[in-house]
């Protein structure tokens, strides 16, 4: 915002209140009410407004307090913003960002705890990122703002309290680039968002196998090359998703890997997911619902020992 007047922020309570999760705290004091705009509770007008302002040359960063709220305005993103470049044959583009809070773990219940990345990842024209730590939040948000297309940044609520070094000197990252967080031999574990720390924790328990742990960072486009290179080495693919198995990114990653590396794969791919069910509220229930490190270890170990995909916990007898 300091370097370019075109960047503005808009959303419900993003200004004076600094955002429901305080992500935009202090911005209005610093940049004024012209650039940090408190809007009515009008998600369609927020996303449509951001789109119009972006077509007209600004770089609006819109916030939806919870990703579920984008549902009332999805048209503006997946059908309107995502098609403007195409329908104008490249004469117009929409450099807007949607930042929104996703995920479970805080007891917000079924309507405020989903990730819903597949709402966005199935739209040609959109780019979708999911930061896993403070450093990636910083670099991904910058990439999203400077990108000339609509970008959705899914910020996990469970990560807002994280503390970590942010490297301001790093050269700019590339859109769609994953990062290998940990190097191993026996299995490739691919994760995104809050599941990255779950995957890392699993790999660090000395489970008797070692893993490449890849933080995907971007769900659309996603880093096919890096994932393939790793599975070519390990022959085993595991994805860890904070959502049920239906229409999740893990399915796409698994299919692409299988179609490309079939003859080199030792076992079928394993998708660690939540049950295909709404997110429960009570702490005990939600804890069981979300994938954790212990469960990842169990599932991966079982795959490596038996050679077949183990039942998920909710189907244990």
């Amino acid at each position, binding site marked *: 915002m300091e370097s370019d007047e075109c960047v503005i922020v808009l959303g419900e309570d993003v200004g004076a209140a600094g955002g429901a999760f305080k992500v935009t705290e202090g911005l209005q004091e610093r940049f004024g009410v012209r650039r940090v705009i408190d809007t009515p509770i009008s998600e369609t007008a927020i996303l449509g407004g951001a789109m119009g302002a972006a077509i007209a040359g600004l770089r609006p960063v819109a916030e939806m307090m919870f990703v579920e709220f984008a549902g009332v305005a999805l048209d503006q993103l997946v059908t*309107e913003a995502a098609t403007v470049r195409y329908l*104008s*044959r490249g004469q117009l583009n929409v450099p807007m960002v949607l930042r929104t809070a996703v995920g479970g773990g805080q007891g917000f219940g079924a309507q405020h705890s989903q990730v819903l990345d597949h709402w966005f990842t199935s739209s040609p024209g959109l780019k979708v990122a999911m930061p896993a730590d403070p450093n990636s939040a910083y670099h991904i948000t910058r990439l999203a703002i400077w990108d000339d297309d609509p970008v959705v940044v899914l910020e996990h609520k469970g990560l807002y309290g994280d503390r970590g070094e942010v490297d301001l000197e790093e050269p700019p990252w590339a859109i769609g680039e994953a990062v290998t967080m940990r190097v191993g031999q026996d299995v490739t574990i691919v994760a995104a968002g809050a599941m990255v720390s779950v995957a890392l924790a699993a790999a660090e328990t000395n489970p008797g196998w070692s893993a490449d742990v890849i933080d995907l960072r971007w769900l659309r486009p996603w880093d096919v090359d890096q994932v393939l290179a790793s599975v070519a080495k390990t022959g085993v693919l595991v994805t860890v998703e904070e959502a049920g198995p239906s229409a999740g990114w893990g399915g796409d990653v698994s299919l692409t890997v299988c179609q490309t590396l079939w003859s080199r794969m030792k076992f079928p791919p394993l998708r660690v997911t939540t049950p295909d069910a709404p997110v429960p509220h009570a702490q005990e229930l939600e804890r069981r619902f979300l994938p954790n490190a212990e469960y990842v270890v169990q599932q991966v170990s079982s795959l490596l020992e038996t050679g077949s995909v183990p039942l998920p916990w909710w189907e244990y007898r």
Partner: protein
Amino acid sequence: MSIESPEHLRRRGLASDLGRLKRMIEIREVEETIQSLYSAGEIRGSTHLYSGQEAVAVGLASVAPLGDTVACTYRGHGMALALGMEPTAVIGEVCGRSTGCVGGIGGSMHLCDPSIGLLPTFAIVGAQIPVAVGVALASAYRAADSVAWAVLGDGATNIGAFHESLNMASVMGLPVVFVIENNLYGEYSPLRWTTPLDDLFRRGEAYDMRAAAVDGQDVHAVAEALAEARSHAAAGRGPSLIEAKTYRYSGHSRSDLGLYRSADEVQTWVSRDPIGILAERIWPEGHSSRLSEMVEQVRSEVRAATEHALRPMPPIDKVEMLRHITG
């Protein structure tokens, strides 16, 4: 100084009454051509014709300077022509030809030409309205004197996007003009079945917005009301809601014959034809022969444009087809 594009020249042609009349005739002729091309099997998908509503688009285009942005609906052939798009580009696009304004990738519902301020026309009812508000936000942010126009149907005043947009534009005081083309029907439903009002401009009151109705068949009345609304917006005094009372002569789309409307009703509106009204004003005496002359001239121009649009040309190739999805 660059040479003015044909589209820009066409826009400036609306400064005179003769220019406006000719453009309204052109819109009517293009729509009739499209109807017959549809019947001849030349057109896939849907078309939504504008015949009967010409004074609204031409009135708007004659007071919107280049630099303004128009976010309009799938019923957009008339607006595109009024803003300056060439008939060849409209007909080519509607027929899915590479001669179309976007090479056939858009079709009837997605005409576009940023050089005349026309965003890709919107096929989701009401979706264009908040986008115009956003364009106005950018204009206000830069203290530019351009204005954004949201053009919508009567049916669209019942969708959430309309209300969110009016509210936000009003509370932020943005330079946008909302133009309702009240043609009395949303698809096959008469206004009164779906809406508890006859006068839709009254919805502006709920948002403390300047609002008025205008005779949508009289291009002068439309231009005057919209020019006022535009000055109001450009002066930083906020949005307006203008309801143009108009009528679509054909059915909602494609093969709809509009049989749910009485012959009397249609006749009443046809007798207040926007082209006839302006012709009579231009030529108080003996207007019918002068009008026929002009119609003949435009008809042959549109015929030539149609031939040009449909001339044998290969469709855009697969590289072009898959370009411009992201940058």
